C-alpha cells in the first residue's frame, strides 16, 4: 500500500477510510453549497455530494469567510471524512473552521503520492501514525 506522511488536525478516531474526491487545482471551500453539501463551480464534480468523502487538493485558498463552510456542513450532517492538501502549511481559516466542526484537515501530503490518487480511490487515514494510504 502506498502511503504518505501528513500533519494537521485529526479527530480522535485513530483509523478511518473513505472515497477520495480529487481536485487538481487550489480549492476554495466557497465552491461548496453549504446546506446541500454539494460542489458548485467545480465542473468535474458539479452537484455531487461531499458527505463522507475525503477531499484531496493541492491547497485551499480564497476568502477567509470560507472558514465557516465546515461549520455549516457539520450542522446539516454533510461533513466530509477529511480534507487533505499537499501544501506545507494548511490554510489557517479552513483549519479554524475544521477545528470548530470536528472535521480532520491534514496537510503536507507528498505531491508524488497525491498525483497517484484518483477520484473514487479508497484512502485510509491513520491518525496516530500521521499517515495517509492508498488502498
Amino acid at each position: 500500500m502506498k502511503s504518505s506522511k501528513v500533519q494537521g488536525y485529526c479527530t480522535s478516531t485513530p483509523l478511518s477510510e473513505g472515497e477520495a474526491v480529487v481536485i487538481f487545482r487550489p480549492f476554495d471551500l466557497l465552491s461548496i453549497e453549504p446546506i446541500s453539501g454539494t460542489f458548485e463551480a467545480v465542473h468535474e464534480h458539479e452537484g455531487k455530494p461531499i458527505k463522507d468523502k475525503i477531499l484531496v487538493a493541492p491547497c485551499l485558498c480564497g476568502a477567509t469567510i470560507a472558514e465557516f463552510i465546515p461549520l455549516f456542513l457539520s450542522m446539516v450532517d454533510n461533513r466530509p471524512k477529511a480534507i487533505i492538501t499537499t501544501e506545507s502549511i494548511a490554510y489557517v481559516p479552513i483549519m479554524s473552521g475544521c477545528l470548530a466542526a470536528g472535521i480532520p484537515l491534514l496537510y503536507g501530503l507528498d505531491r508524488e503520492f497525491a498525483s497517484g490518487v484518483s477520484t473514487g480511490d479508497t484512502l485510509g487515514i491513520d491518525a496516530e501514525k500521521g499517515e495517509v494510504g492508498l488502498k
Partner: protein
Amino acid sequence: MLDGQYGAAVSQAMQMLTELGEAYGAENMLDIKGAHVFAWKVAGDLPGNVVLQKLVDMAGGERVKVPCTSNPLTLNLDLAERLGLPDDLTATHRENISRLQTLVRDSGVIPTYSCNYHYPFEPKLGDHYALTESNVCIFVNSWYGMMSNMEGDMTALASAITGKTPRYGLYLDENRHGRVLVRLSDDVDAAKLTNADFGAISYRTGEIIGDDRVPVYVGFPEDFTATRAKYMQPQVAHSSSALFHVVGATPEAPTLEAALGGRKPEEAFTISRTDIEDVYRTFNTTDKREIDIVGIGCPHCTLEELGELAGLLQGKRVSDGTRLFIGTSAAVKSLADRMGLVKPIEEAGGWCFPTCARWACCSWVLSRYGT
C-alpha cells in the same frame, strides 16, 4: 488560561488556540500586539445568524486583551435609506448588524469597520498580530513586515480575548522567505502600471504558484506605494500565501538575496502584458457597453486614491443611468472631507461612503434587478 481561572470564554479560546498550535506543530504561544476581527459579512440569512451567534458565544462577554480593529459591516445602516435598499433586505439584516455593533462595543474592539489597514496601531517590523481578512493580513505582512498568519474569524477572536497565538507559519522567519521569483517581461512597462494592473499581476501570480509559497517580485517601479501594495492581495484567490515581497520596496526585501533568505528560488517566471490582459478577460464577462454601476474601494480606498478620484472627477459629471460608488473607512472619509476631496466626487454625482463597497454595490443591483 486553560484551567478556567480567567473565565469560561478565555478557557475555550485558549483550548482552540492550543488545538490550532498542535495541528501546526507550534512549540509555544506568542504574545500578540493586536488583532483584526469579524471578517464575516453578517447578513440576515441562516448562515449570518449561525456565524453571529457563534461569535457572540465565543466572546462570552469578555473584552479583548489587545488593541483590536474590526472589518466592515455588510452595510452601514445609516446609508440603507439613501441607497434605496428595500425593507425585506434590511429587516433581519438590520437586527444582526446592530447585534454585531453591540458585540464590537461590549468587547472593546475599535470600530474601524474597514478592510484596509489604517492608523490604530503603530506598525513595527517583526511585531506579532492575529489578523483575519485576507487583504488586511497580506497588506500588513508584506508592506509593514508585521507578522500574522491569515486568521479565520474564530482564531482571530480567540487570540484577541487571550492576547496569545501559537507560534507557527508566518511567525517563523524561515516561512517568510520568498520561494518563487516573479519578473515582469519586456513588454510590460513598469512605470505605466495602473493599480488594476498590480491586482492582475497578483491574481496571475497566485494562479501560477497554486500553493503556500511566498512570491518575490523584481522590477517593480520605484514609486510602489501603500495603495499599490493594497492591490497586491488577489494572489489568495488561487494560493494560500499571505505574504509577498517586492525587492527595494517592502521591508523584508531590501535585496533579492534577503527576500529569498539566501536560498535559490524554487521556481521563476515572468508576467507578460498578455497575462495581465488575460486576467481582465476572465473578469469582463459582458460585451455590454452601458454601465449600471462603478464600484471602487474593495479593499477600502486610501486617501491617495480619493485624491486621485477627486482630481479625475473635478468639473465632470457621472453619466445618466450610471451609479458611481466609492467605499472607504470612516477615518479616511473624515480626512478626505476635511481636505475637500469628497466634494468634487459628490458634485460629479458620485457617492463616497464609509461602508463595504462590494456589499453596497451588490445590494444596490439586487434591489433594482433582483439578480
